[in-house]
């Protein structure tokens, strides 16, 4: 605590006990901790920063944000922070409160604030094979009860299988399908005030999955089929329908892959099941059954599909009919993985895997 009034003053100091320069911050809290006043200074090794709290209040000296402490404030708490060294600080501190009434002073020290608990984010962390993403290591600062980013202090990044996810310098490279545990090492001052916050090793971890495109699901509410109607396609005229939908690419566990992936498809007839006498298929890339052609899913792993048929066998007696059916096999190539679907083209509908 600090104390300033007609008969008291407080001096707070922090020194750089390290071998390199560092930025120190002294923050004075008042108004039951709701208000604060901060001084910052770069300290060379051995240099000190001083806060004469009485002088600050009496002369209304502004802090780094231009803020002053109201004259009626008489007491509060304080915090010292090494801004450049999150895990293990260089600072040492001292405090002197002077009681002018009785002509004596007393010394005090702040209790140390350490860290407790660790986490690596995101957790779980998933990415499509061939992609990469950043991890963040955090530990809870028991002074502020907030999670602090300690990624820069973390080292020895690794996973339990680097063939699946190769983790280096906080970046996960998703190599092949599977799930691993990712981790890093960081030295932090643990929150043990009675032992002056000893430096200990922490090991934040997360679960990481390299996702392989394995199946497609139809996004709810996106699936619609036009009524069967007259149509023409080049030299062909007849009747048919168009079904439009949005696919979500799923991984080996049925979990959506939230990344942009290249895609294209091929379609081939099932032998002996071409009742509609289909003579060709329009596929994602032109000409038919070629690819890739620059098409990619959105960042959430979704893409649109338009399945259509236009057939003279669906047109008879000046009316659209439901006279034929053709079975075909479709293969989607998504980021190098193949997903096979069965298609059934009929005059009034197109079925995918029987639906």
């Amino acid at each position, binding site marked *: 605590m600090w104390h300033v009034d007609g008969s008291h003053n407080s001096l707070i100091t922090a020194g750089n006990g390290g071998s390199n320069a560092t930025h120190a911050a002294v923050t004075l809290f008042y108004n039951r901790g709701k208000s604060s006043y901060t001084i910052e200074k770069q300290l060379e090794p051995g240099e000190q920063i001083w806060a004469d709290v009485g002088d600050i209040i009496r002369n209304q000296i502004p802090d780094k944000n231009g803020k002053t402490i109201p004259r009626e404030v008489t007491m509060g708490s304080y915090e010292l922070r090494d801004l450049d060294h999150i895990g293990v600080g260089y600072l040492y501190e001292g405090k002197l409160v002077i009681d002018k009434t009785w002509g004596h002073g007393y010394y005090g020290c702040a209790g140390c604030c350490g860290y407790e608990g660790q986490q690596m984010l995101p957790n779980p962390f998933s990415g499509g094979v061939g992609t990469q993403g950043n991890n963040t290591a955090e530990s809870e600062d028991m002074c502020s009860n907030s999670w602090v980013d300690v990624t820069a202090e973390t080292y020895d990044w690794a996973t339990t299988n680097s063939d699946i996810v190769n983790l280096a310098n906080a970046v996960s490279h998703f190599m092949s399908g599977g799930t691993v545990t990712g981790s890093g090492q960081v030295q932090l001052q643990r929150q043990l005030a009675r032992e002056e916050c000893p430096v200990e090793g922490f090991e934040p971890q997360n679960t990481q999955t390299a996702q392989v495109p394995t199946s497609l699901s139809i996004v709810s509410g996106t699936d619609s089929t036009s009524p069967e109607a007259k149509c023409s*396609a*080049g*030299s*062909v*005229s*007849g009747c*048919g329908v*168009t079904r*439009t939908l*949005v*696919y979500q690419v799923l991984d080996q566990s049925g979990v959506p892959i939230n990344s942009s992936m*290249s*895609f*294209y*498809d091929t*379609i081939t007839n099932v032998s002996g099941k071409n009742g*509609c*006498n*289909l*003579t*060709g*298929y*329009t*596929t*994602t*890339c*032109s*000409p*038919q059954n*070629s*690819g*890739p*052609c*620059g*098409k*990619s*899913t*959105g960042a959430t792993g*979704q*893409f*649109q*599909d*338009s*399945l*259509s*048929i*236009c*057939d*003279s*066998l*669906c047109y008879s007696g000046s009316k659209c009919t439901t006279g034929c059916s*053709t079975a*075909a096999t*479709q293969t*989607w190539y998504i980021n190098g993985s193949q997903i096979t679907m069965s*298609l059934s*083209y009929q005059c009034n509908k*197109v079925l995918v895997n029987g639906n």
Partner: protein
Amino acid sequence: MLRRLSLAAILLLGGREIAGSRQQPSTARTLQGSLASPVGSYSVDADSTLVALIKVATDFKLPMGIEWIKRGGVVVRYNHSWQVTTVSTIIQDIVASLPGYEVDSTGTRSVLHVRPSAFQVDNGDIVNAHVGLFQVKNELVEVASRRLQRLAGTIVMPREASQSPGGVAGSVGTGVDDQKVTFTIEDGTVRDILDRLCLAAGLKIWIVAYPAVATRTPAGFLRTASLYNDLPIEDRWQPTWNLLPWGTPRDLK
């Protein structure tokens, strides 16, 4: 040879768009405004001049139509920097690096066209061909584009209406940038319709590629080529083209 056109005044009106489905009137002004925009500093370092054009279209949000003769596997990077210039000058400088190309002066007012100048008067350029009435009713742009390809295919390779019973089907995947659109163009060229398609949704660049060595179909049309491989395209699949969103293109060959 490049013509130093005033890009703010380029491009004539194309096919007639039926009332109720016309493009936003502000689009042409937007393009002209974009071309005249001052640019303090800009640089391009691209795998090819085509990629450089796509980058400029992307960076300055320009709808663009490009007719491109492939280089036959020859890689010619494009690298250039500008200081205190305009978007128009940047495009003109890039096109100037392509002998025989020009900023096209036909078509709609809203899409910037780049093409070999010889194609302007070539009746064998499918992009110049008129396709009569073209209606799009609540169709994805990519799907409408593929239907236009089939229609253009009957011009490139005239064939009689199919006598044998049967039909065609398909599954066209398209990105989430694509949208369903509705419009009608009467007596438009393929270029007019491609322009309309690229203004309609998120696919802002159309590209028709031609092989390095030009060949023609029996009907006298220039054969087109794939942007993504060097395999020849059979006449029954001619012509072909691609609609791209603004952004970094993938898989280009």
